[in-house]
């Protein structure tokens, strides 16, 4: 077993799409909140295989896309004005702030490094004791432990030159915000399997119960995704709207990864925060607790708290917010594929490879857009 290719089986895919078609008696709108899933759906053209009634909505599942513009500006300021080494994931390099992107800052001479693992930035800090190393730490629950493990290691090794510029989000408040909107069109949610691997899915029971929307924990391979959709349709058609089902059992348990949850609770606390394109979400973000404040780049470098700044997405006409709330499809935005392209994005969902607009642009069919 590889636990990947086995879930790309053509017979399974055909069987699932047939079963979904047989079950579907009316239109249903199912939202995934995970950029990885959005990407896989677009890559394998899964929407083309579903019956007409089933529409997939792509929620705000990309931490790169919802990182506020002000934080990108902070990152650039750290690398240019403060002269720090700014390390981050490749995903963040093209995201526009108000003064350009990290990639542009690098071209202008700033020390910006692309890294795969936050722990590598700790190794860099240890190797360059005279130099401040800031990791621009973005992520949902899936990525938090990687960032916090790096910070713990830096603390243990007494590395005073390491800090984090945090942009941490927690998924359930975003789901509640979407469901609380009176014009919400979502009938069911696919919960992101890798977030749930850490958090478990017990927390979704209250959401399903309160809003009468089923939640199906879903994986990332094509058969996994269709399996999640299959269960969503089954629950919706059967009227089981308050159910939570785990369709990604090989990786996710109800309680999740308790050790990582303990690490997260020890080092982070919930905070109200801005989701780019969506707005301020109460308890929608996480920040370092007081004892770790000295490792928070915003505090350490006395940057003004840019996370609270509103983005000016509407000024450019970017429809990121409506797209991420499932109200609009990328192709409905006048900028999509016209003056908003992966090489010069107008908004974050096009800038991030994982963003819904980028996924739709990259894997577009002649049906979705005529370019």
């Amino acid at each position, binding site marked *: 077993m590889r636990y*990947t290719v086995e879930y*790309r089986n*053509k017979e399974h*895919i*055909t069987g699932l799409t047939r079963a979904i078609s047989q079950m579907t008696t009316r239109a249903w709108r199912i939202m995934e909140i995970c*950029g*990885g899933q959005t990407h896989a759906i*677009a*890559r*394998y*053209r*899964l929407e*083309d*295989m579903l019956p007409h009634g089933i529409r997939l909505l792509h929620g705000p599942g*990309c*931490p*790169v896309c919802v990182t506020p513009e002000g934080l990108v500006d902070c990152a650039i300021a750290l690398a240019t004005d403060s002269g720090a080494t700014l390390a981050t*994931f*490749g*995903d963040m*390099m*093209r995201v526009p702030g108000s003064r350009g992107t990290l*990639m542009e800052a690098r071209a202008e001479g700033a020390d910006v*490094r*692309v*890294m*795969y693992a936050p722990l*590598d930035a700790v190794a860099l800090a240890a190797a360059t004791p005279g130099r401040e190393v800031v990791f621009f730490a*973005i*992520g949902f629950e899936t*990525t938090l432990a990687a960032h916090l493990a790096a910070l713990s290691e830096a603390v243990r090794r007494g590395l005073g030159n390491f800090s984090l510029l945090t942009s941490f989000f927690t998924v359930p408040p975003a789901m509640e915000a979407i469901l609380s909107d009176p014009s919400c069109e979502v009938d069911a949610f696919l919960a992101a399997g890798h977030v749930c691997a850490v958090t478990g899915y017990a927390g979704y029971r209250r959401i399903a119960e309160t809003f009468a929307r089923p939640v199906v924990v879903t994986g990332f391979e*094509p058969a996994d995704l269709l399996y999640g959709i299959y269960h969503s349709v089954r629950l919706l058609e059967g009227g089981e709207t308050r159910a939570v089902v785990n369709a990604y059992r090989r990786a996710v348990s109800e309680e999740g990864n308790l050790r990582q949850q303990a690490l997260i609770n020890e080092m982070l606390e919930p905070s109200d925060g801005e989701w780019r394109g969506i707005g301020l979400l109460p308890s929608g973000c996480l920040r370092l607790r007081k004892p770790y404040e000295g490792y928070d780049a915003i505090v350490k470098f006395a940057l003004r708290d840019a996370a609270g700044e509103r983005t000016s997405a509407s000024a450019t006409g970017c429809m990121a917010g409506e797209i991420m709330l499932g109200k609009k499809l990328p192709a409905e935005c006048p900028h999509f594929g016209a003056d908003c*392209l*992966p*090489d010069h994005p107008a908004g974050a969902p096009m800038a*991030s*490879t*994982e963003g819904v607009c980028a996924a739709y642009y*990259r*894997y*577009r*069919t002649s049906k979705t857009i005529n370019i």
Partner: protein
Amino acid sequence: MINTNCQILHNSSDRILMGHGGGGRLTRQLIEEVFYPAFGNPLLAQSHDGCVFDVEEGYKLAVTTDSFVVSPVFFPGGDIGHLAVNGSVNDLACCGARPLYLTAGFILEEGLPVDTLRKVVASMRRAAGMAGVRIIAGDTKVVERGRCDALYINTTGIGLVPPGVRIAPERAREGDVVICSGPIGAHGVAVMSERESLGFSTSLRSDTAPLNHLTACLLEGGLKAEVHVMRDPTRGGVATALNEIALAASVHIALEEDSLPIPEAVTAAADMLGLDPLYIANEGILLVILPGECAAEALGIMRGRPEGREAAVIGRVEAGRPSVRIRTPFGGSRVVDMPMGEQLPRIC
């Protein structure tokens, strides 16, 4: 009187000094001790600013140039020297030319161990031997430490195109098939594995290899007039090469995802780093476009050579808007675009 340059030269010949690029005695020493022993041949021994040679009757001349800046300099399966020779050899081969001569321009960083240069030069010599080309002119410049990353190499290649061969991207037309000579993505993944910021190990090795014997077999094996396009999909990968051809010929290219020869480790690395194997660089595979009815013959010829053993049809040329699409194993199809700039590893 003591010439200080000479002192430096004899006291610390294990490092490249700024003086090695000065055009003086140090430069001369480098040429005589490093380059001539490796590349020595009567044409290079003309020891002139350029090299003059005869062109055979009825043949056309093909010229190409390419610069090599790969980091790290050494990687599993090859090094910058291999690439510098094979890169220009393959560019000539893809023009339908028989590569004959290369020139080599070196940009060296001050402080570079001469031993590193020797190793690179030795692999250039081996690569030139395998391809059957000679290096007939060269140049060396040294830049201050920090102004280049160890060493850069530019090679210019000169080859002869036999009468009757006409290979050009715009010749791709409806009814042609796209043949790929071997596994996709090995070179790019092998190089990435050595990058400090990614750091993984793999048994994959760069596929760097000369393609001129393979192209010669195709052209001399009776398909001289039938081969429309040949391309080595280097930087930007198969996706970029095919997009360029689709644009040049104003055709649509349809790939079959199931038929792409992508090694498991390439898929694994691509999954890990969030990259698409179609955009990963190759240095030793050949894309051939020719009429569908010649596919079986071409495959037979290609599979008869080690570098073409895994040759397979991966797609078809169709009429339509210039673009490349790929059919997924499940029946859908999606656009395979030109890549947007640098391929960055992503975690989300």
